[in-house]
């Protein structure tokens, strides 16, 4: 009885309101009508330069055009992004191939759904090992008995740093690898707390602006030119449950990547990057950004996994079909 009396006024309100609402919707701009069936995706982002194509798509309304409302949360990378995706706090998170493969190998339901960044085979890379110019360190062999800084242990820079040492004649077991956050790497070099540091832009540019330091190696290019470093991750359960949203996300992201590739040297792009990263626009404008990838290359994922096995991060090879969303591999 109480339920009935509670509902009655509501029903009455709905009955009288419905025609009014309908009229309002019909009269309103078509954009408003579309906003009603917009799907929201919660995306964990690492606000670095690598994420530029995503922010281009966001800024230029490509996600909206695909009917997607994007809610971004900054994360510091896979350590935060993957648990958040697995728990459902995020639908998609930016991460790298090493954390994706590690998560999949540990039995987590994680797959890469879209490409984020790729290392170009030519031109100076935006990631390099830096050492004092006067130290006489040129190869991995020279680094033996010395200290190399990477941002996170047992992750992507750690892996390629070790592989570079091996490739250039050193034994990675004889190199002490220290964890130092990117913003502190240059200070650690200056303070002689590390002998070399694996840095990325813009910190790499800041270090190289000082004549006392120079790049001694480009581990990605030297070990695996064209490596697919960054991807967007989701659970395969989410992909199965929301196939349209994931496909729309990939389409919008590709439009962002295409615009990014066509406008790499423009002030508009520098403005977008400065907007989300809070870096000075003048500094961004000076960078020679690599092209954004349109697909994830399963062959590169296999190579990364093989490298992980070589450096002891993985015990068995992985099936790339199980860690990559197939449409992301096709143009």
């Amino acid at each position: 009885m109480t339920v009935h009396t509670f509902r009655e006024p509501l029903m009455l309100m709905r009955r009288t309101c419905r025609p009014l609402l309908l009229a309002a919707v019909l009269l309103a701009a078509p954009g408003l009508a579309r906003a009603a069936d917009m799907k929201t995706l919660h995306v964990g982002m690492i606000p670095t330069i690598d994420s530029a194509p995503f922010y281009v798509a966001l800024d230029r309304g490509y996600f909206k055009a695909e009917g997607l409302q994007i809610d971004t949360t900054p994360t510091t990378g896979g350590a935060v992004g993957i648990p958040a995706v697995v728990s459902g706090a995020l639908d998609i998170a930016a991460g790298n191939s090493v954390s994706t493969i590690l998560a999949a190998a540990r039995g987590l339901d994680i797959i890469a759904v879209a490409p984020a960044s790729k290392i170009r085979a030519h031109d100076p890379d935006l990631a390099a090992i830096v050492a004092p110019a006067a130290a006489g360190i040129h190869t991995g062999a020279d680094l033996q008995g010395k200290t190399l800084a990477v941002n996170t242990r047992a992750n992507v820079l750690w892996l390629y740093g070790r592989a570079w040492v091996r490739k250039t004649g050193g034994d990675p077991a004889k190199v002490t690898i220290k964890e130092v956050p990117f913003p502190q790497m240059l200070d650690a070099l200056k303070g002689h707390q590390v002998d070399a540091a694996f840095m990325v832009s813009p910190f790499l540019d800041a270090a190289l602006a000082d004549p006392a330091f120079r790049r001694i190696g480009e581990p990605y290019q030297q070990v695996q030119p064209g490596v697919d470093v960054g991807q967007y991750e989701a659970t395969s359960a989410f992909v199965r449950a929301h196939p349209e949203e994931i496909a729309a996300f990939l389409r919008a992201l590709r439009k962002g990547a295409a615009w990014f590739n066509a406008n790499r040297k423009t002030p508009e792009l520098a403005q977008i990057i400065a907007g989300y990263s809070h870096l000075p626009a003048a500094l961004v404008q000076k960078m020679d950004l690599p092209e954004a990838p349109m697909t994830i290359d399963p062959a590169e994922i296999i190579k990364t996994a093989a490298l992980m096995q070589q450096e002891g991060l993985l015990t068995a090879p992985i099936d790339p079909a199980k860690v990559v969303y197939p449409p992301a591999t096709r143009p």
Partner: protein
Amino acid sequence: MIEEPSATLPSGATAALAPPRAASSRRTGLAETRLSGFLLVLALLALWEASARLGWTGSTNWPPFTAVLRAAVLGLGSGELLAPLGGTLARTLAGFVAGGLFGIVAGLLLGASPLAARAFNPVVEVLRPIPIPAIVPPLILFLGLGDELKIFVTAFGTFFPVLVNTFGGTRDVGTTLLQTAATFRVGRLATLAYVILPASLPSILSGLRVGLGLALVITITAEMIAGAGGLGYFIVQTQYAMRPADMYAAVLCLAAVGYLLNRCFLGVEARLIAWHGAGHRDP
């Protein structure tokens, strides 16, 4: 701990008699220590300014103090710093209140029941030393990246010092007090509320004070690890954006907030247990 029951009980008479004498003697003592402390802070700030201006550190991450001050004023004025500051403060206080209340209740219960104390003490001792940064990533699985996570870890960190101090406080309640209550046939619950709780208030408050300091630190740490918003995230963001002056401006704000929170707490404490302070701080 030998104490006169009259000094431990919140008696209006002793509280009214003691303060004037205590306040006057405390004022001169505080003025001296505060001045010397203030001078030391000034000297350190001058050293900071000089080291940055003269390039002693050779680091681009070490801006002069005046640049930091300028960034703080600009950031507070534009709201870029004020909004995260408000978020951090709200999460700190929410976690502190939740953790503090649970800590007091749990401490009193453990104090009242030796059986509960024996049963729960090992659990407390195991959970207490867990470093917060270690539990944030697994907790994301259950609590997501939002405020729930940050408030929970803040409450978790506040809970233990309050619990341990409350429990310790109940242990130190004089037998004279308890026997007096028993003699007057005061019930168990009433004894807990009117004898044990007020008598352990000094310990509870010192636990809360430790908890408050921790709450701010833990909130910042959690914000640094997960999610957007708050001064913790702002500090990480400005580091990665190569804006050290803005980063130190946030650190400066944190120092000021920490100082103010502590002073506010001392003010509340002085009101709540004036009787205790008067009995103890008087030389």
